[in-house]
């Protein structure tokens, strides 16, 4: 299934990318599975999405836990802990 993935702040800079369309392999049904799928690319992705890194995520503009499910057409975002206010 197809999803859109967006990156913000230091993640966006590390990956040199704001957004990409992604065809997820079958069974990639949660945010953490998407993250693992991207991490498996290695290189900047392996680094920026390493398990030891604090990465927050949102699905369709709602902050979610890593266990949240994803479905076709979703907009999934990865970003570092927020620092506004």
């Amino acid at each position, binding site marked *: 299934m197809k999803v859109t993935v*967006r990156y*913000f*702040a*230091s993640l966006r800079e590390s990956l040199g990318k704001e957004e990409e369309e992604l065809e997820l392999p079958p069974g990639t049904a949660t945010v953490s599975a998407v993250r693992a799928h991207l991490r498996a690319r290695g290189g900047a992705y392996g680094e920026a999405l390493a398990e030891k890194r*604090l990465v927050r995520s*949102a699905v369709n*503009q*709602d*902050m979610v836990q890593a266990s949240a499910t994803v479905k076709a057409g979703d907009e999934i*975002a990865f*970003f*570092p*802990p*927020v*620092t*506004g*206010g």
Partner: protein
Amino acid sequence: MKISVQQQAFDLTREVEAIRKNDKVGAIAIFAGQVREVAMTLEHYPQMTEKAIRGIVEEASRRWQVMDCTVIHRHGELQPTDPIVLVAVASAHRGDAFAACEFIMDYLKTQAPFWKKEAGRGWVEAKASDDAAAERWNPPAKGVKGG
């Protein structure tokens, strides 16, 4: 309720006037945050930001008596002493106004998708103390006082 994510500056008096012209309002608690010492760029996640702030204000309104509320958060390039954020809560009593205002700020710090990058220093690290500040509101605070 007014929520605005914007680059431009805002006028404090005008924003407060807009929420206080109701004779049931007795208390307005306001928080104004500004840039300290180092110029910065604030990045945000446009489609998510207002939605996240709206959710936080709605949660505050379930917990306390909020008669009106304005949240303005700036993005883009900001210089030292430039205002970043304004949270203004109008209520009948000060206990509700203070609690809702502080709750909104604490949640905004940990839930609203903004990221600060300081000139010459890089991305600002999130603080454990901000997580702790948001955590203390769980479970919902009781004992809101009158006055």
